[in-house]
């Protein structure tokens, strides 16, 4: 009783450090960016930073390219990591146990190091090429500095992440759900579509949105492994700041990228907020 009435401020105090960091490094810079994006270099209110991008063929091309990369990475990583997570969940072999220990490893390798490692394998003079040379063929994979290179490198990071989320989701699918279904005559196919997917689809959507949002603003990987053209939005933004030194336009592009991500966030919220009847009372 006594414990309940004291320290009503405690929860606020606990939230304060995180909130103030958020305020100063996230919220304020965002307001600053939005503000800047509606002004020109001499400080006058303008929309030209935005109209520039709406009229620019390069920006449109960049948007399409980013969308293709992001969707490809999303679909591939969701499908591949779902398969991986299924294997980890339902196979009891030593390979599965080993994989279960190893699959998160890429997440602990610093990004740049990993990208260079992948580049060294897939570049035209890389490991693949050297192996093919030793077999007497000069095979140039043509993966690096191409959309395929961006997608491959991104998968390196997104598969462990998505697989981790899906493993968590699949661990909530009890063995007896599966066994009951087999008992009443269900094939593996219908177990997947009727039992496993309905129980895990939310987590699949959530991990898909996470992967997608990460791609929209991606910079390092496309910068190092992508083609000169078309550029992903992250590179276009970097170019606005580094080459054109047009910070106002860069701010406008930041805002546009943010709005794109917001689309992803809405999907995420809807998936997370949808209250299935069967989940109530849990």
């Amino acid at each position, binding site marked *: 009783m006594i414990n309940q009435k004291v320290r009503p401020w405690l929860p606020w105090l606990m939230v304060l450090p995180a909130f103030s960091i958020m305020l100063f490094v996230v919220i304020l810079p965002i307001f600053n960016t939005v503000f800047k994006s509606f002004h020109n270099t001499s400080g006058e209110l303008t929309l030209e930073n935005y109209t520039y991008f709406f009229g620019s063929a390069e920006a449109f091309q960049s948007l399409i390219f980013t969308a293709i990369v992001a969707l490809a990475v999303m679909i591939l990583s969701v499908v591949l990591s779902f398969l991986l997570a299924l294997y980890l969940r339902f196979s009891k072999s030593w390979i599965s146990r080993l994989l279960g220990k190893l699959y998160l490893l890429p997440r602990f390798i610093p990004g740049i190091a990993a990208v260079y490692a992948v580049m060294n394998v897939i570049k035209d003079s890389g490991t693949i090429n050297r192996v093919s040379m030793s077999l007497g063929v000069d095979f140039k994979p043509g993966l690096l500095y191409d959309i395929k290179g961006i997608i491959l490198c991104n998968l390196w990071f997104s598969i462990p992440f998505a697989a981790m989320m899906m493993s968590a989701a699949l661990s909530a699918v009890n063995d007896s759900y599966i066994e009951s279904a087999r008992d009443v005559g269900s094939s593996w196919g219908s177990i997947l579509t009727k039992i496993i997917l309905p129980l895990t689809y939310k987590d699949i959507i959530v991990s898909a949105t996470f992967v997608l949002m990460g791609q929209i603003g*991606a910079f390092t990987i496309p910068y190092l492994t992508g083609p000169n053209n078309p550029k992903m939005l992250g590179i276009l*933004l970097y170019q606005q700041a580094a080459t054109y030194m047009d910070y106002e336009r860069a701010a406008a592009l930041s805002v546009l990228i943010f709005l794109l991500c917001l689309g992803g966030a809405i999907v995420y919220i809807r998936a997370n*907020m949808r209250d299935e009847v069967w989940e109530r009372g849990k």
Partner: protein
Amino acid sequence: MNQSVKKMVSSVLVILMTMVFTACSSAPQNSSSKSVSSGEKSTAQSETKQETSGEIPTVTIWGSGGQEVRESLQAVADAFNVDADYNTKAKVEVQFVVSGTSEQSLVDRITAANQAGETDTDYDLIALDDSGISPIIAQNGEDFFVPIDTTKIPNYENVVFKDNIIGDTFVPYRGTTVMLAYNSEVVSNPPKTTEELYQWIKDNPGRFTYCDPSTGGSGYTFATTAIYNQLPEEAATSPDTKWKTEHTEEWDKGFSLLAELHPYLYQTAGKVQYPMKNAGSLDLLANKQVDMTTAFVNMVLTNKSMGTLPESIKLQQLDPAFSGALAGFTIPKIGKDKEAALSVIDYYLSYEAQSISWNTMYASPVVDTNKLENLDHSDWLKETNISTLRYFAIGSLQKDIAVRWTEEIAPLAQ
């Protein structure tokens, strides 16, 4: 009620999360200026204390660029701090922003400090080349750097490139030269002139490359040379925009030359690809993907000494030469102790410091090389002697070259 609170809280969290995603990955100009660590701040405070108590002032050199530049600056700073003639005048610290981590950072930090109205900062000396200085001026005004009185720098006498220096706010401490780097196993008779080079590129499709000019100076130099070879010589040392606005024909010619060369350059995945950064084109050379590229002399020599580039990689200067530059010191008006800063510049121009600079990063000396002692690979110095430095200082026109290249040449690569 509980449900709606839950919804609200999670919506807010998600929106913030999205913001972090966007902010982290794509808004360098927002986040970087906030990343000055508290450690640096406290150093600044303790310095102030030291100063008021009459002790030796600390001079902080701020630099940006590759790791090797940091090491070189630091090596000279360390020598300064143990040199009895100098360490009574100041104590040198080096703060460095390694490029590739958050490249805009140094400019942003300086701009942030300046815009915050600070006047007593530890931005005592900025060590950058001309291409790094112009963005600072662009954001902070022409008067941001104070004139340097060279009479207070005794070793300034040693400098051999005095004629190349424009204005009175800049004192060079090393040269940056781009030459042609080639694989001598394949190319026995390298081009000696730019015309020969352009012909060689066309004769050997796919075997030459230069990096995206907006990402590395070696590529930028290739593009700049193509344009400025069309212009009168005096244009190279003038930041006047008339060299663009009144000479569009020459610029067009330069860019059409670049466009003409484009299909003969290195290709991967079935199309021309300009590598990113100076290291990107050197990597292609090291892996024998190309036989020739433009490269910073000091990068080639450093890589050769470390064994990451084979001995067979040689350097060749062209005639007319690729555009070169000088890296040097400027003193921001917001720095604390401008007198002490002069003594530091003085030391960096000593023969001793110039030798250290060569030995740590094969920096091209700005002094008479015959007076340098204890050099590693002194034969390489002869090979790459830049007494014929073709000095470029074109200010904001640099940006125009990079922008026009990005708009006209880069789109060809698809």
